[in-house]
Each structure stands twice: as structure tokens, then as C-alpha cells.
């Protein structure tokens, strides 16, 4: 079996929060991918708690879950340039297909991703259930495409907007970022999992989380000590993941650190479960 298989995950409140690798359960007997599993996926999430009213800058991050099992982040917007005029796609899970923008032609279509509901509709629910552009409860024709020239975000003098509800990815110098983003997906068909999560990324884990874990007193029970070490291990894991996401750690160093942390955790178990 080649490649990895990404499955959507939810938090305690049943909000879709991302994707995880689950190759063991991903395939049917005929080796086709089970429903809900994707070879590639995208998580679009707010960067901070200060969510803007309109998509006037790259307020979101689009994390691509690649076929080779790695992830990569791209600057993105998931809000229209003027939320009082255009619809905004509600948080949730969708699928995308490799296609073009504009999907139905227009004068200058270029390769992009077209977004659908899980049952294949192009009518995606509006965030407030009341699309200001049309007065209906959905946003139609949502694509994932590049921003304006030199990453312009806004409305052109011809009245056209860079986003009327579409998700925009940073172009970068001479479209380098956009091209890199698009190269993660196959133009040979297949669904791409898409999650729009409008809650901000978790606050940064700092070393404070380590110092905040209270050390048990001498003579405490083995369970207390185990709990203490497990909390520390989780905090170290979070720090490692954050460092990796912030590109402070290479893939190799990340896995190496995670490996050591796993060993430490295993040793802790051995120490306290004798």
C-alpha cells in the first residue's frame, strides 16, 4: 500500500479539527478507499483569536496533509473581502476536486480546487445561514484559488473581488507558493478532504506548561509520580509538535525527538508499573 491515508478527527464538541493518519482501517476489501478517508487533505484554520471581519489579509493557515504523510502550511484567507456583501462558508468538513477557477469557464480559467459538500453539492452552507449576496442559506461556487497579483486582496477597479467567499492561498513571488500548494494534489481525480475550522489555533505551548506541572511530594504514591511524568511527556510532545509546525525542527529532528519522548514515556511506565 503506497502513501498515507488521512481521516478527519473531531473534538469533544463534535467540531472537525483536523486529520490523522489511519492506514490500517482506510481500505475496503477491494482496495478502494473507504468513505471519509482521503489521500490528501486540507485544514483551514484561523491563525489567532483575532479573527477579522473580512478577509483583508492572510488571517488563516491552510495545512496540507500530503500523500507522503507530511504536512505543510500555507498562508490563506477563508473570508470574503467584504463579509457584508458576500457569503462566508460555514465551518465543517467538505471535499475538493482538482479543477479550475472559475469552474464554469469565464475568460481566464486556471487550475484550482473546487469545493463541494460531502454529498457532492456546490452549495455550501453559509456561516450565518444568510448569504448577504443572495439572501439564501448557502454559498455557491466556492473554490480554493490564488490571490490577486502580488498577493493583492481586495476589490479591483472593475468591481471584481479576489474572494467572494472563496478560499485564497498566498501566491508568493511569481506564484511560487500557489504552485507549490497546488502541486500537492493530483489532477487525476479523487476527493481531497477539506476542513474549515473557524476556531483559532491552540495558543502557543510555552515552557510555562512544564513548570506549571506540580511535582509530587516525596513519599507520594507511584500513581502520582506516574501522572506527573505523563503530564510532562505530553507537554514535551506538544512543544515538539509546535516547534515542528513553526518550522524550528526539521522532519528528521522532529521524529528523532518524538522517538526519544516515546522512550522516556515507556521508561516511565516501566518504572512505575513494576
Amino acid at each position, binding site marked *: 500500500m503506497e502513501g498515507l491515508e488521512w481521516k478527519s478527527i473531531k473534538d469533544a464538541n463534535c467540531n472537525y479539527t483536523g486529520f490523522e493518519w489511519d492506514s490500517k482501517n482506510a481500505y475496503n476489501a477491494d482496495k478502494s478507499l473507504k468513505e471519509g478517508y482521503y489521500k490528501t487533505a486540507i485544514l483551514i484554520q484561523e491563525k489567532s483569536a483575532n479573527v477579522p471581519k473580512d478577509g483583508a489579509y492572510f488571517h488563516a493557515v491552510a495545512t496540507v496533509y500530503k500523500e507522503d504523510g507530511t504536512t505543510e502550511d500555507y498562508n490563506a484567507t477563508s473570508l470574503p473581502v467584504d463579509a457584508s456583501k458576500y457569503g462566508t462558508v460555514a465551518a465543517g468538513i467538505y471535499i475538493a476536486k482538482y479543477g479550475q477557477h472559475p*469552474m*464554469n*469557464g*469565464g*475568460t*481566464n480559467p*486556471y487550475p484550482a480546487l473546487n469545493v463541494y459538500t460531502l454529498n457532492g453539492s456546490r452549495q455550501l452552507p453559509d456561516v450565518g445561514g444568510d448569504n448577504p449576496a443572495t439572501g439564501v442559506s448557502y454559498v455557491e461556487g466556492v473554490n480554493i484559488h*490564488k490571490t*490577486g*497579483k*502580488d498577493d*493583492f486582496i*481586495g476589490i*479591483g*477597479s*472593475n468591481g*471584481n473581488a*479576489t474572494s467572494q467567499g472563496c478560499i485564497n492561498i498566498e501566491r508568493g513571488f511569481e506564484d511560487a507558493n500557489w504552485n507549490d500548494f497546488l502541486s500537492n494534489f493530483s489532477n487525476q481525480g479523487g476527493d481531497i478532504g477539506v476542513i474549515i475550522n473557524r476556531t483559532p489555533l491552540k495558543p502557543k505551548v510555552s515552557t510555562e506548561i512544564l513548570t506549571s506541572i506540580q511535582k509530587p511530594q516525596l513519599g507520594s504514591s507511584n500513581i502520582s509520580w506516574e501522572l506527573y511524568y505523563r503530564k510532562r511527556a505530553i507537554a514535551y510532545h506538544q512543544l515538539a509538535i509546535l516547534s515542528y509546525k513553526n518550522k524550528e525542527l526539521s522532519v528528521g529532528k522532529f521524529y528523532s525527538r518524538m522517538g526519544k519522548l516515546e522512550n522516556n514515556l515507556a521508561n516511565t511506565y516501566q518504572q512505575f508499573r513494576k
Partner: protein
Amino acid sequence: MRKNYILLLFVLLQQLYSCSNKKNREEIYLDENDLRTNIRQSLGEDSADLHFLKVKSDTLEITSNFEWSFFPFGIKDISINKIQDINHFIFHISSTKNQRGTVIHRMTFNESYLDLVEVSDSILNGGFDKLAEHNYSKPNKFYLRYSLIKDSQIKLALDVKIGINKDDFFRKTIKYYDKTMDSIRVFINNDVLGTEYVQVFVFDGNILREILIYNPSGNGQN
């Protein structure tokens, strides 16, 4: 004695050359940051219309949200008739159909030409107008795919035309001009959406000699 004269001559020549070179450098020195600031100041409330600017050698390239960036001929719904109208019907027109059935109209005048692509509404709307009620109601649309202008008779937005001087050209288009801009030989303007036009203005000395306007996708509806 003769040796001293030669030495003196050599030093003088060197000084002369160095001065002339310094003078040239001063004349052609164009500071990208200064220019960006000056143009934005000059644009005042519309300063955001200048989105991006870069200078490379003798080429100034900008990305802008000026109205003329989207309507280079000053016409909002471009069509053969409208272009003919503002240019006193000087163009000769020939039409061809490509393999995809798209009609391209070439409007020619002397050394200049404009290629306009005629697009049916069904292409624009993904075939939804095949419903009976839409079939007869919407006229086809025209898009400028490529244009080469070398003749002063052809009018563009803001009364820009071949033959105007650099000072006049820049004051009309980006509302700013100073002597450092004399070194600019090529001026490129992109629309901010990156979907409509790239406009290239080529100067010969102080005079605008050639204008190219083309769609950034390079193919329109071909």
C-alpha cells in the same frame, strides 16, 4: 618634462571620465523606495491604487488598481464597435475561428493591431443559458487578448497615445514624474487582480513609441 605632460594629461582625462561617469550615474539613479513613496504621496487618497512597484535596470513595473489598469482603452464593455467609434472607424477587421470554435477578430491599422476574442454567454455561464429563456437575450462578450500599438492615431484611456513624452505620460497615468524617471525605458503595469491586462509601454528616449497590452493568462479563450 614630456613624461610629466603625459602624466598630467592622463590624470586630467581620468578626472574628466570620472566626473562624466558620476554625472551619468546621478542622472540614471532611480531609487525604488523613494519612487514608491513619491507616487503614493502624489496619489493622495488613492495611494492604495499603487499596490506594488519594482525597478529592474531600465524597467519600472507596477501592480495597480487604477481604472485604466482594467480598462486600457477607457471602455468598460469593450467591443469592436466601441473601439471603432472612439477611433473614427480607422480599423480594418478580419475574423478567424479557432479549433474550439472561438471567434477572434483582428482589428488592424497601419502597424498596429488588436485581437479581440468573442465569447458567447454560454461559455461564460457554463452552458446554463441553454435554457430557452436565455437563448436569445444576451449578446456575446468581447475580450482583448493581445494588442500592439505603434500608431499615434489610436487612443487609449487618459489620452495616452504614441508620441507623447515621458513627463506627460507618467503625470497622466501614475500622477507623478521626476527627472530620475528619465532612465526608464520600459514601463509595465499589471492589474491587481492579475486576471485582466499586462500593459507594456516602451519609450525611445523621451517619447512613447510602442504599447503592448495582453491578457496575463496569455491565451484568453483560445
